[in-house]
């Protein structure tokens, strides 16, 4: 899955503006996470048709990048996330960052994972039958 990453030069101030632009474009944000420092931040979002949204945002002078991420379903029980992560780590997967969200339609808890090495992750997913 492709995640949309957007650079925010002023993490707090620019966030609302970018969200407004996304609203104007009629984009439905399935999941969102904000990573920030004192000066700037990166908004990470999961949307439908990420490539088109990226092009639209570029036209509006946003710095955008498509980043490959993995979206996994998580069992709605204690330790559900830890169980999956333990298995992946055992296979050599290194997680760069992650964030969780709940799909509105079915209340399914999910987690977005960005891993360092796509190939290792792919092999691990196949092996674990996920």
């Amino acid at each position, binding site marked *: 899955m492709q*995640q949309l*990453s957007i*650079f925010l*030069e002023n993490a707090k101030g*620019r966030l609302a503006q970018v969200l407004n632009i996304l609203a104007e474009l009629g984009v439905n944000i399935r999941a969102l996470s904000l*990573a*920030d*420092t004192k*000066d*700037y*931040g*990166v908004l*990470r979002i999961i949307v439908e048709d990420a490539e088109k949204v990226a092009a639209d945002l*570029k036209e509006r*002078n*946003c*710095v*955008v*990048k498509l*980043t490959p991420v993995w979206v996994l379903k998580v069992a709605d029980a204690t330790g559900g996330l830890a169980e999956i992560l333990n298995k992946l780590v055992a296979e050599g997967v290194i997680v*760069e*960052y992650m964030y969780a969200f709940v799909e509105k339609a079915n209340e399914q808890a999910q987690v977005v994972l*960005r891993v360092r090495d796509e190939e290792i992750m792919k092999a691990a997913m196949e092996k674990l039958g996920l």
Partner: protein
Amino acid sequence: MSHEELLKGLRKTVEQVLKAPYYKKKLAQVDIHYPHDIKKLDDFWKIPLTEKEDLRQNYPFGLFAEPMEKIVRVHASSGTTGKPTVVGYTRDDIKLWAKIVANGLRRIGVTSNDVVQVAYGYGLFTGGMGLHYGCEELGALAIPISGGNTQRQLMIMRDFGSTVLCCTPSYALYLAESLEEAGISRDELKLRVGVFGAEPWTDQMRDEIEARLGIRAVDIYGLSEIMGPGVSMECLKGEGLHIDEHFYPEILDKDGNPVPEGTDGELVLTSIDKKGFPVLRYRTKDLTSISYGQCVCGHHGWTMKRVSARVDDMLIIRGVNVFPSQVEEAILTVGGIEPHYLIIVDREGNLDSMEVLVELSADSFTDEIRQLEELQESLEEKIEDILGLTVKVRLVEPKSITRSEGKAKRVIDKRQEKL
């Protein structure tokens, strides 16, 4: 030019300036009353330097060396403070200037078949008309579009088939960016070479411009007090700006003493053969070095290094001398950012602070904060290496720093507001 010829030329200039009472008085102080008092170069070097302040004191026409009926044109440089400095040209001066500019253009291969888009300002500023007359002298087609109105610049560049672009380097970059935005591809343009000047720039900036516009970029130098653009200009070899033989250069250290060939210092210029507004040993405030020799392009004489800094642009931050061009060189060496920057100097308590805003380039944007921080840190380290001063780099979005249609504004010094 032989030593004798040079002395002859300098004597002619002395003869000419003696027609202006102000100079006459000044030269009398060092016992020069007639041109033949200049017997050797040592005599010439006794002459006090001419400063911008001398021009201001004689505002507007006090230093003209010909009667007003002989003067056919004036130009003026914008004084950032107070009155502008005004210079006058006779008909012969205008012809000479056109020839000098035409020579420079010829050296970079411009011919009567070229279409030259002159995007320097036309008016009291010498840039526009200086290039314009040079083109006409050469027989090239000059488009007097002047500065600004970027959309029209792009349209004309494409539709008229401009082959040569003349403007400031910062405006050239802005035009490149605007071409991309307008979706005009390189194939639709006939642009081949750019003649850029009127503000200090670096080799790194030249590389950027050449890559983005797909042209050769050459540096042109001049100032209205001496004549205007064309005093010196690069050839395609790109190893310095050839000083035209109608100008005698000296490089002086900050105490006014001559430095050895190849050593950096302030450029001081004397015009030769100029009638309306001859200048003797004028302090340009531009820092460079000069060397004498023969170039493959045919130029024989003095060549100066690119002016990367002006004495007036120097910032003193925590006691350290800083030139904006040093920051430019540092950040463009690191890469990963757009070639636009803004230096903000402030004072927090008793300590000067320097922040450099740079635009993150869309291509180098990475999703991970860690990598953005690494980019920011490597920029900071590179600047600190060159300046010996801690600075803060702030990454901002592309196109968020104001673009310039003329000379770029690189510095905001908030300390002045606090005085």
